[in-house]
C-alpha cells in the first residue's frame, strides 16, 4: 500500500482540478453548468453529488472492466451510473429530505453529465480501482470548482446575494445600482465560462494551440 499516493495517483487526483480541468479544458458537462449555476447553493450541492458519483462509478467500472463485453460497454457504464444516481437519490430522500427537495431535478441530471461517461471511457476502463477512484474525485472537484466560481458571479451580480444572504448594501441600490437580470439567464453562464477558459489558457502556455 506504499503506492497509495504514487506520482500517477497524485496526477489522477490533482491535474483535473487545475491544469486538465474537465469543464474548462476538456469542455465537458457544460449543460449542467448552465442549469444549476444561477444560485450558489445548488451549484455546491451539485458539485459534491457529481464528485461522489464519478468517484464511485469509476471505482465500480474499474473493478469489472476486464469482464465488460466491448460492444456493450457504454450501456454497462450507463447502467452503473444510473443505478448509483438512483441509489443516491433514494438515500437522500430517506435521510436528508430537505437536501433532496432542494436538488429536485439536478440529481437525475447527473446521469446525463458527460464528465462521468468521459472519465469511465477514458480512465476507469484502463486503470486500476484505486487510481480510478482518485481520478473520479479529482474530476468531480474540478467540475465543482468551476460551477462554484460561475455561480458566485451569477448570484452576486444577478441577485445581489450569496447563498441567499444579501451582500450588496441597500445604499448601492439607493445610488442607482441595479441587479443584472441577464446574469440569471443561461447565456451569461456561457460567457463567464468562456472568460474562465480564456483566463486559464492565457496563463497556461501548454494549452494554446500553435
Amino acid at each position: 500500500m506504499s503506492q497509495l499516493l504514487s506520482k500517477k495517483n497524485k496526477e489522477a487526483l490533482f491535474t483535473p482540478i487545475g491544469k486538465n480541468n474537465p469543464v474548462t479544458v476538456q469542455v465537458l458537462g457544460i449543460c449542467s453548468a448552465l442549469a444549476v449555476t444561477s444560485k450558489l447553493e445548488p451549484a455546491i450541492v451539485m458539485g459534491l453529488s457529481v464528485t461522489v458519483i464519478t468517484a464511485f462509478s469509476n471505482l465500480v467500472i474499474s473493478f469489472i472492466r476486464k469482464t465488460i463485453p466491448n460492444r456493450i460497454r457504454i450501456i454497462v457504464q450507463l447502467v452503473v451510473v444510473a443505478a448509483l444516481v438512483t441509489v443516491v437519490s433514494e438515500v437522500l430522500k430517506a435521510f436528508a429530505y430537505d437536501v433532496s427537495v432542494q436538488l429536485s431535478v439536478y440529481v437525475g441530471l447527473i446521469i446525463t453529465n458527460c464528465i462521468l461517461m468521459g472519465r469511465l471511457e477514458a480512465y476507469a476502463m484502463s486503470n486500476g480501482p484505486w487510481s480510478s477512484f482518485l481520478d473520479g474525485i479529482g474530476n468531480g472537484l474540478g467540475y465543482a470548482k468551476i460551477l462554484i466560481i460561475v455561480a458566485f458571479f451569477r448570484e452576486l451580480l444577478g441577485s445581489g446575494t450569496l447563498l441567499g444572504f444579501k451582500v450588496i448594501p441597500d445604499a448601492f441600490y439607493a445610488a442607482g445600482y441595479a441587479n443584472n437580470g441577464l446574469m440569471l439567464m443561461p447565456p451569461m453562464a456561457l460567457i463567464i465560462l468562456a472568460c474562465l477558459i480564456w483566463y486559464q489558457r492565457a496563463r497556461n502556455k501548454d494549452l494554446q494551440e500553435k
Partner: protein
Amino acid sequence: MATRKFRCKVCGYVHEGDSAPDKCPVCQAPASEFEEVTEGKPDKKLNTNSNTYTIVYAAVMVIVVAFLLAFVNSGLRDKQDENIRLDTKKQILSSLGITSDNAGADYDRYVKRDVLIDPATGMETEEVPAADFSTNYDNEAKAGRLHVFVCDVDGETKYVIPVNGAGLWGAIWGYVALDADKQTVYGTYFSHASETPGLGAEIAGEAFQDQFNGKKVMDGGNVALSVVKHGTSEGSEFKVDGISGGTITSDGVNNMLHTCLHNYVNFLTAK
C-alpha cells in the same frame, strides 16, 4: 465433425485437417511440435466478445441492478413516505406563517380538522381521519375530494385550502390560508417541482408569498385573487405582483388560484 486446427509451437503456423502434419511446411518442425487449437471450448480466458457472453452479461447485469434498486427502494420506502408526510404538514404550517422543526407535533397542535367539502353546497361532508392524511392534493382534487384544513392559531380559526397547477417546467402547488371570514388571505405557501432558479422559482420565496397577506379572495361571486404583471398590482385589494422574468410561472400561479379556488366558491361564500 468440423476440421480441427493444429498450431506449430515453433513458428505459429496453423494447419487445418484431421491430424497434425508430419512436418511443418514453414519451419520443418516435426509433428510433435504441433498442438491442437481448442476453439469454442473455453480457454483459460473467457471470450468477452462472443454474442452469448454479451447477452448473458447484459441479462445478469440488469437483473442484479434491478434487485439492488428494488431492495433499496423497499428498504427506504417507509422512511421516505414519512418524510413526505412531514414535509406536507410543514408546508401547510408554513402557509399559516409557522416555521417548524417538529412538523408532526406542531401540525397536531394547530391543525384541528382535515375535512372534505361538497362543491355544490360548500358544506362539510366528512372528516378525514389523521391516518388517511394525503400527500397528493392534485389527485385528491381530481377525485372530487376537496380538502379544507380547519386550523386554530392563537384562538382564531383559519382555513387552509390546497391548490395545484402547472408552471413553466413542471408542477407547482401551494396552500392558501384564509381568515375566519373566508375572504382575507392570512398567509400562503407555494412550491414547485422544477421552475427556473432565480426566476420562476422565486414563487417559493417569502418576498412573493408575503404579498398575498391581507388580500381579498372573492369579488362578488368570482375568484378575484390574481397574480398580475410585475408593477401593476398597486392599490388593488385582489392583485399581487408577478415575478419579472418568471412570467409563465407567475401566470401558472394565477391560473392555479383561479381553477382550484373556483371549486371552493360555495364554501367561501357560505356563512
